[in-house]
């Protein structure tokens, strides 16, 4: 029983850790790409010495994407930090596979979920909104590429890469919340079960 629980813990913790890393990297890329897109479009307007509608729209979208990416990054970092502590604790204790250690780990994970539930919900929203912004930015980039078309091969490559990066960030942003929702669903059920357990434990306490 304990070994089975330990293996399950190991798989669950590795999966959640990978998910938080993906989100941290995604949010960092989204932030940097938001800045670079904004600055590039600003320079185009500075060089042209007039306000260009497409560049203004792209600048605005990039800045909004950047703001949401910061939010995504903050919540990802908060969850990562708490979970990393939990993971260290797990590594230190996993050598001693006994019921007591496993129970302590379950309590720690339940406590982590209770404490980080609001942050996970905000992360889901932040990630999804950022993803939508980058999808839109990518769509505009692709449209721009097809409609106007860069003059040389290097510009074509850079524009195509930019559009691809936007779409990739958009997909990560939109898709990763479904994993957080899955994590929440599983731990929410465990929380509900723990409330049922409390009644049984109360009976034992009152029986004495």
């Amino acid at each position, binding site marked *: 029983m304990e070994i089975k629980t330990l293996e399950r813990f190991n798989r669950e913790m590795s999966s959640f850790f990978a998910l938080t890393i993906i989100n941290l990297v995604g949010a960092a890329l989204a932030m940097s790409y938001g800045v670079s897109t904004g600055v590039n479009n600003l320079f185009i307007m500075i060089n042209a010495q007039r306000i260009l509608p497409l560049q203004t729209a792209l600048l605005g979208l990039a800045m909004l994407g950047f703001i949401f990416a910061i939010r995504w990054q903050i919540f990802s970092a908060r969850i990562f930090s708490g979970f990393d502590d939990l993971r260290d604790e797990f590594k230190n204790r996993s050598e001693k596979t006994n019921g007591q250690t496993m129970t302590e780990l379950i309590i720690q994970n339940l*406590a982590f979920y209770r404490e980080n539930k609001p942050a996970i919900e905000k992360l889901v929203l932040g990630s999804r909104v950022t993803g939508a912004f980058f999808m839109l930015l990518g769509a505009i980039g692709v449209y721009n590429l097809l409609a106007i078309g860069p003059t040389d091969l290097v510009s074509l490559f850079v524009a195509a890469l930019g559009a691809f990066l936007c779409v990739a960030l958009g997909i990560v942003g939109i898709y990763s919340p479904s994993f957080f929702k899955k994590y929440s669903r599983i*731990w929410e059920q465990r929380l509900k079960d723990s409330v049922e357990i409390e009644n049984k*434990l109360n009976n034992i306490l009152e029986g004495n």
Partner: protein
Amino acid sequence: MKGKRTLYEIYWEILTFCKNPCTFTSIIHRCSLNSKIGQEHLGFLLSKKFLRRFEEETRVLYVTTENANEFLEAFKNMYLELFNRGPEFKL
């Protein structure tokens, strides 16, 4: 242990930690409790005779009694079952 825990989880931690005799300070430190809340929990567990208080070389120590075994065992079994029962989280 950090984070939001239920009353029963805190009781389990205290009782598990006190399997070896402990001082009040070490208990509240290990279980991340403040002094007032720690007093309340220890008071409750003493009243249920799950903990015993004794003095040794001018130190006041707390130790888990056999009365707590049923609670500790039931808690452990129910939490292990809770974790293993549902679907597993994986990417």
